[in-house]
Every structure is written in structure tokens, then in C-alpha cells.
């Protein structure tokens, strides 16, 4: 299945693009996507503890199931205001 991946701020810079497409096998979880990304972009690893992930605009845990067409977003700690 295909997942749309968004990344912001420092994580966008590591991924070298604000938006990517990610191919995952059926039944993959948020944690699986994270693991795949860390293999492709090892600079993500130090951000693991502070990173949050949203799926379709809602924060999710790493065991959340993904579906074809989902939009997941990688969040560093926020700094608005």
C-alpha cells in the first residue's frame, strides 16, 4: 500500500522534502513506517524519543494500523506562538 508522508521543521530537513510517498506491505503499523524511515534516514534515530506521529490529522501510537492512502505526519516538538 501507498502512504503519503509529511514532515515538518527539523524532520523535513532530514527527509530533504516536505512530502514523500512510502510503500508498505498490507497490515503495516505506524511503528513499521517509522522503522523503514529510520533505515532510509539514519539521522532520524536521535529524534525517536521526541518525535510524535499523526495519522490523518490525529496523533497516533506506534502500534496504530495503517491503510492505503493514509497521510502520516512526523512532528518534532512544537514551537508556535
Amino acid at each position, binding site marked *: 500500500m501507498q502512504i503519503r508522508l509529511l514532515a*515538518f*521543521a527539523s524532520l523535513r530537513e532530514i527527509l530533504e522534502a516536505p512530502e514523500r510517498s512510502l510503500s508498505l506491505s498490507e497490515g503495516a503499523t505506524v511503528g513499521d513506517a517509522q522503522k523503514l524511515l529510520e533505515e532510509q534516514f539514519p539521522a532520524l534515530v536521535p529524534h525517536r524519543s521526541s518525535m510524535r506521529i499523526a495519522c490523518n490529522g490525529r496523533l497516533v501510537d506506534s502500534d496504530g494500523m495503517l491503510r492505503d492512502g493514509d497521510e502520516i*505526519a512526523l*512532528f*518534532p*516538538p*512544537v*514551537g*508556535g*506562538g
Partner: protein
Amino acid sequence: MDSERFSIVRGPVDPRRFESVAGAGEGALVTFSGIVRGTAHDGRAVVGLSYEAYETMARIEFEAIDAQARERFGDVRLWIAHAVGDLAVGDVAVVVTAAARHRAAAFEACRFAIDRLKARAPIWKKERYADGAAQWRANETDE
């Protein structure tokens, strides 16, 4: 005047944006404006900030803050506008306005909204320093 209640705008926010939003029953308007400071928390000279946002989710978060404020403080209305892009020192990065019949609810809702926004809204800032360097900066808990 643009009176859209929850928005992400490109460039500095006009501090007048919500100056006339109060309805006939609303006697109290409290507005918070967050302004780009010329010094960082560690004392470095800042020449500007660059904000970026996950816009669709930020607007959803602003609407959630509004709903939570009504639950907590009763009949109160909120307006929120946050900048994205490059801002200079002195520019307005965020304006939050709360309108209510009496001032207690307006003050409490405005404070609640900016506290929540700073802790939760998917918005990020990069500080740009006088020496040419730049760095992403998360909010401190008490910031």
C-alpha cells in the same frame, strides 16, 4: 476585515485583525499578541523567526481549543491567527482574541487558548541569528 475565526496566515499577523469582533452581548474583549523578540532565551541576538505549520491540523487544533474553552469557561468565543513564513523582530506572530459577556471568562479563555496553542498546535519556529546561523526551537514548558 477578515474575520475568519481560525487561520494560518503568510507573514506577520495584523494586530487589528480581531479588533471589532465583539457581538452586542459581549462586553469584554481580551487579546493576546505574541511579538518576535530580538533576543533568544539563551541571550543570542535574533534577527527574525521562520514559522512553519501543518496547516489543516493546526486549524483543527484551534477549533478544539475553542470547544474546550467553552466547556471550561462557558459562553465565550475565540479567534486565533498564527503566522507562517519569515518574520522580523517586532512582527506579530500570533493573535488570540476572546470575547465574553464579562471579563473573567474572556481573560481565562484567552490565557487558556495561548497556553494550549503553544503546547499543542503543530507549528514550528526556526530562530535566525545575527551571526547567520539558524536553529529550530521548541517551546519550553513555561514559555
